[in-house]
Structures are given as structure tokens and as C-alpha cells.
């Protein structure tokens, strides 16, 4: 039996085990570092994903708007072609109207030629009210009373309102005051202020531009006051009128620009409400600017009564044909979509605010509102616009006050801030110290959790225990094995203590990563609060402009906006 135990194989196994443990050790260290890195990457990825999601949503919205805009541009062409195709022949009749009057003024065309032209138009445009009107006009010029009577009777049958206004203007042009008054009286007798046809705008134009002088001017003014008094006695009229004006003023709110408070928008959960409130406050400036521009500058007055009447006749024959209304409605909505850069909702809101323009008849106060806010849609002149605004000032004031009160009520009292995982609120950006302390507190807690999460891995304990056990086992053999066993135990213990020491390094890394994040959060907080302070300052300043609108509107009075033509100044007080 040999005396010496061969420990070389155990030696080699221990060496192998030691190497393996070193590999495990280095792997565990690497994994630990990777865990910290993965945590940081995860936070970064989360932020980037949110950014990407936001960008994607913005891209989809922009793409949708682009398509809507392109579609609207194409459709407008189609609708206009359809109008041209279906009603193009009316255009010839319309142009002929002032052509006949001007040719007669100049005495350059033979009466027979005019008569022939109007007869042809009568044949080529069946059912159109203007054709028999022109026949009557040419017969009048030719002094053919029988034909004139027949033409007028047929025109009245086709469209009494327009025919009466047409001949009122023709009589005014010919300076036949008595006939003018009789045609106007006829027109007024047929009107119901609760459901009035749109061409009443021509009468308003005549009044505001000083075309109707003397008795006609007084009659028109009185009739308007009677209509409005009658309307005001209707239950709910005033509320309706205020709502109508509120809708008109509300769509004047500008949209938020991309450069408006970008950090606040990114980090406030209630950013949509904050931006809405900002735009609502900015509306005061837009409303004030609109009314100031309207009442600034000289009006362009046609050089003569003839020119003024011709302009009104053009408007009467061109702007108020009910058959064209469905197409004009479609055309207008498409125009608004184009103007709003494809934003269909904004276009629909504007369209809804002016919807009454596109109705065959509406109440007279609505016509005043439309003339004031969308004169181009009705062919109303700037003088009419001024008159309509000044006559509506009390309703506008009430609507403006209601809107301002609504916006003040809806103004968020706090910005609800979110920066990374922290959230808090600020009213005006003045509580930076308090919020910074809250962030510090949150990050202290986070750091504590992260540091506590760094602990000894099971591998370190396994190495230590395995080293002690195997070392003990070897030592039990006695002799030189004792020394080997001790070396093994010492190696395992050294490894264990090295791992314990490495924990501090890992904790420092976690601490530093979170401190860096805390620094970034504080920088964002500073920027957000600075923007919030600017935001509150701007809102307060824009909100204060509400009073300017009030002062401006209170200074208006309607009689001063009825134009006095030079030839009327003597006759009209």
C-alpha cells in the first residue's frame, strides 16, 4: 500500500474549479453592469418611443390634412365647372342687364337692337326671373307700355322680391323718386323679418352706401328698426342672436403656433387645455383688429348714382339665385377646407358659423350678422359691413362678454406637469423651489431603491461555501493536503470579499445614472416653469385686451355709418 497519496488530480481539479469560478465571477460582474445599462437603455427607449409615437401622430395628422387640401382643390374645380355648365347661360343675361342700362345712357345702341337681344334672352333662358325683367326694361325704354306690363307681370310671377328690388334700383338710377318709393314699399310689404330672402342685402347696401336718398332712405331706416323691434319681441331671439355672434367671434381665435411654449406643451398633461385657453385669450386681439380695420380708412364711393346702382344691380342679379345655392354651399365648404390647410374640423366650424348665408331665407338679424362677418359671401359692401356691425353692436358686446367669461372659466388653474416619472402642478411657475424639492425627494427614494437593489449575487455565496466545503474535505486528508485546503479556502474567501467590495462600485454607478437623470429633470423643470411664467403673463396681457374690444364696440353708433352722398347732404338731415 503506497504511503503517499497522489493529490495531483485533485490539484488539477481545484485549479480547474478556480478558473471556472473566475469565469463565473467575471460573467456575473458583466451581467450586473449590463443590468444597469439595460435599465438606462430602457428609460431612453421609452422616451424615444414616446417621441416617435408623437411624431407619428403628427405625421398622420399632417398627411391627412394634405390629402384633404388636395381633394378640396380638385373638387372646387369640379363644382365650379358644374355651376358653369348648369347656370352659365344666366351669366349672359346678368351681363346684359347693366349693358342695356349703360348703352341707353350713352344712346349708342338702337332701341330695336336692345329689344331683339332681350327677346333672344327670354327664349334661351326659360324660367329665369331676369329674362322677362329685361324684356320689360327694354319695352320701357322703347315706350311700349303693353309689353312692359306683360314683362313685369311675368317677372313678378317668377320672383316678386328680386323684381321689385330690381325696378326700385332702376328707378333710382333714372332718378324717379316716386316710382322708387312705390317699388320699395311693395318690396317691404312682402317681407317677413323672421324669414327674409337673402337679397335684402341689396337693400342694406343701397341704404348704407347712400344710394337711397330722401324719403327712400328714411323708409328703409324705419323699416329696419321695425323689423328688429319685431324680432326682439320674439321669445329667445336675443339669446339666438348672441349665440350667432358668439359663434362668429369664436372662430376668430387663432391656432397655436409650433413655437408656442414647446417645453410646456411637451411636459404638461393638460397642454391641450392650456393652448386652447391661450388661443381664446389671443382671440381678443384678433377681434379688436378685425373691427378696427373695418372702421379704419375711407370707403370707396362709386363716382355717380348710376355707377352705384349698376353695382347693386350686378350684386342683385349675381349673388342670390336659389337654384345655385346647393353648389355654392359645396363650393364654400371646399374653399374653407383649402383656407384652413386641410383642417376639416376647423373648416366645418367656420362653415357652421356662416351657415345661414347659404339658406334661401333666414331672419333679418342673421342677415345683418352675415353681412358684417362674411360680406364677400353675400356681395355686401364695406359700408354695409360697417352699418351691420354698428347696428349689431349690443349683441356683439353681449356675445363677446359671454365668450370672455367662458374662456376665463375654462382657463386651467394649474399646469399638470410630468417630467420622466415625476409629476406635479404649478399655477404660474413661481413654486420652483417646492417642485425641485419634490423631484429631489423622488430621486432620493429612487436612488435608495436602486442602491438597495444592488446586492451580492448567489454565485459569490456558492463560491465561498463550495471553497470552504472542498477545502475542508481536502484538509481532512491531513499532511500537505491541509495546506492545499487552506489555500483553497483562502482563495474562495478572497473572491467573496472582492465581490463585496465590487458592490460599492455598482452602487456608485446606479447612483450616478440616477443623479444624471435628476439633473436633466431639474433642467426641464426650470425650462417648463419659465415658459409657464411667460404663458401666464401673455394670457393676462391678451385677456386684458377684452376691455379694448368693449370700448371699441361701445363707441359705434349705426346712423353715423350711413353714407351721405354729396347730392343728399342737403335733403337728408
Amino acid at each position: 500500500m503506497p504511503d503517499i497519496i497522489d493529490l495531483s488530480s485533485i490539484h488539477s481539479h481545484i485549479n480547474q474549479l478556480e478558473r471556472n469560478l473566475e469565469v463565473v465571477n467575471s460573467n456575473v460582474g458583466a451581467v450586473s453592469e449590463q443590468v444597469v445599462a439595460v435599465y438606462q437603455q430602457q428609460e431612453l427607449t421609452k422616451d424615444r418611443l414616446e417621441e416617435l409615437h408623437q411624431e407619428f401622430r403628427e405625421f398622420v395628422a399632417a398627411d391627412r390634412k394634405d390629402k384633404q387640401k388636395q381633394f378640396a382643390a380638385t373638387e372646387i374645380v369640379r363644382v365650379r365647372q358644374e355651376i358653369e355648365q348648369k347656370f352659365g347661360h344666366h351669366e349672359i343675361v346678368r351681363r346684359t342687364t347693366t349693358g342695356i342700362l349703360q348703352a341707353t345712357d350713352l344712346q349708342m345702341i338702337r332701341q330695336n337692337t336692345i329689344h331683339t337681344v332681350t327677346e333672344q334672352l327670354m327664349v334661351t333662358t326659360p324660367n329665369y326671373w331676369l329674362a322677362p325683367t329685361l324684356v320689360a326694361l327694354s319695352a320701357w325704354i322703347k315706350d311700349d307700355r303693353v309689353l312692359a306690363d306683360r314683362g313685369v307681370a311675368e317677372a313678378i310671377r317668377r320672383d316678386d322680391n328680386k323684381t321689385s328690388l330690381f325696378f326700385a334700383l332702376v328707378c333710382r338710377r333714372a332718378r324717379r323718386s316716386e316710382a322708387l318709393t312705390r317699388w320699395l314699399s311693395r318690396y317691404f310689404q312682402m317681407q317677413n323679418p323672421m324669414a327674409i330672402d337673402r337679397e335684402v342685402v341689396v337693400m342694406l347696401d343701397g341704404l348704407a352706401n347712400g344710394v337711397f336718398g330722401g324719403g327712400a332712405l328714411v323708409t328703409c331706416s324705419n323699416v329696419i328698426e321695425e323689423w328688429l323691434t319685431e324680432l326682439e319681441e320674439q321669445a329667445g331671439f336675443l339669446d339666438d342672436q348672441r349665440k350667432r355672434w358668439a359663434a362668429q367671434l369664436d372662430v376668430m381665435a387663432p391656432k397655436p403656433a409650433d413655437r408656442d411654449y414647446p417645453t410646456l406643451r411637451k411636459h404638461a398633461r393638460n397642454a391641450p387645455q392650456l393652448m386652447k385657453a391661450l388661443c381664446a385669450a389671443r382671440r381678443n386681439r384678433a377681434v379688436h383688429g378685425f373691427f378696427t380695420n373695418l372702421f379704419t380708412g375711407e370707403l370707396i364711393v362709386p363716382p355717380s348714382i348710376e355707377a352705384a346702382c349698376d353695382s347693386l344691380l350686378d350684386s342683385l342679379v349675381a349673388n342670390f339665385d336659389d337654384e345655385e345655392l346647393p353648389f355654392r354651399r359645396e363650393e364654400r365648404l371646399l374653399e374653407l377646407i383649402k383656407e384652413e390647410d386641410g383642417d376639416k374640423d376647423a373648416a366645418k366650424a367656420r362653415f357652421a358659423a356662416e351657415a345661414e348665408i347659404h339658406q334661401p331665407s333666414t331672419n333679418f338679424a342673421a342677415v345683418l350678422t352675415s353681412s358684417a362677418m362674411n360680406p364677400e359671401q353675400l356681395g355686401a359692401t364695406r359700408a354695409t359691413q360697417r352699418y351691420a356691425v354698428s347696428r349689431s353692436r349690443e349683441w356683439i358686446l353681449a356675445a363677446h362678454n359671454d365668450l370672455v367669461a367662458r374662456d376665463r372659466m375654462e382657463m386651467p388653474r394649474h399646469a399638470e406637469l410630468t417630467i420622466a416619472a415625476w409629476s406635479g402642478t404649478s399655477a404660474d411657475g413661481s413654486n420652483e423651489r417646492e417642485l425641485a424639492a419634490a423631484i429631489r425627494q423622488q430621486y432620493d427614494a429612487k436612488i435608495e431603491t436602486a442602491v438597495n437593489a444592488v446586492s451580492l449575487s448567489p454565485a459569490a455565496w456558492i463560491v465561498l461555501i463550495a471553497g470552504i466545503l472542498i477545502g475542508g474535505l481536502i484538509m481532512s486528508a491531513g499532511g500537505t493536503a491541509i495546506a492545499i485546503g487552506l489555500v483553497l479556502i483562502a482563495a474562495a474567501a478572497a473572491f467573496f470579499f472582492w465581490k463585496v467590495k465590487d458592490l460599492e462600485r455598482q452602487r456608485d454607478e446606479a447612483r450616478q445614472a440616477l443623479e444624471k437623470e435628476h439633473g436633466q429633470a431639474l433642467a426641464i423643470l426650470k425650462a417648463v416653469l419659465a415658459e409657464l411664467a411667460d404663458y401666464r403673463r401673455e394670457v393676462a396681457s391678451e385677456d386684458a385686451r377684452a376691455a379694448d374690444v368693449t370700448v371699441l364696440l361701445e363707441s359705434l353708433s349705426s346712423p353715423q355709418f350711413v353714407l351721405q352722398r354729396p347730392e343728399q347732404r342737403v335733403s337728408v338731415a
Partner: protein
Amino acid sequence: MPRSILGTDTRSPALTVSASPAQRETRLSPAQVSHRLRQKRSPAYLDRMQRLDAGTHQQNAAALQELLEAIASEFPELGIDERLIGVVSKCRLGPPYEVHICDLAGGIVEHFERWRSMPPLFERGRSLAAHGAYAFIEIYVSTIRAVTADGAVSVLNA
């Protein structure tokens, strides 16, 4: 559209602001109530409302009774259910108080700190009262009315 010559008269009866008992019995239509409540408030009424901040009503039942009478005489033609149920206005007591309410039904005047919630019906008028542009905010069941120092009224549907 031609005017209809025959037909029912759609005109509303004229508004009256008399306080005589006989006329009080005539109920106004909702539109008339709305119109009446939009009219400018009288200087006497404004003055009485603005005295709320003096705090006398909190202890003094007679002062509160005077306030209720001022409201009744401001809206004599309105039924009790059509009148305001309370008032919210900016508190002049200074921080931490922000606004105070006068709950007419309970006869309570109470001052509220910035952080303390008010009863839900009154909370609707808090932002407007705190804004400072209005003398006080009248609270109704379905609307709130912001009254400026000159008596002008803005209406908001709650």
C-alpha cells in the same frame, strides 16, 4: 318668404319689472326669465352684494336677511326657484383665503382657502370669481352669471 297675414300672434308679452303682488303671480317664460337675468344689475343691488366681504353676515342674521331682501327686490318678477341660489366672489381678506360664497338657501357665508374645495354648485364659479374682473358671480341651478362692477352680466351655461 311672404309674411303670413293670418295666424297666431307670436309676440311675447312685454316684460314687467313691477313688484306688485298681482303681477308676481304671472310666471315668465324661460326666455323672458333669461332676458330679465341678463339685464344690468342695479347700483343698490351691487352695493349690497359687495358688502358680503365685510364678514358681518357670518355672525349677523339681520344683515343676511337684508341681503335676501335686496335680491328679492332686484328680481321681484321672478319666482324663488328662478332666482340665484348663491354668490361667489373674490375674497379681500387676503391669503390664504381666495374666494367666499354666500349660500342663500342655507344662509351661510363662508370663506375658502386656495386649497379647499367649495360645494360643487359653487365651485363652477370659482375661476371667474378669483379672476378679479367681476364683482361677483351669481350661481343658478343651470347657469352662472358673472356681474362686473358696473352691473353688466355675462352668462355661462354650467
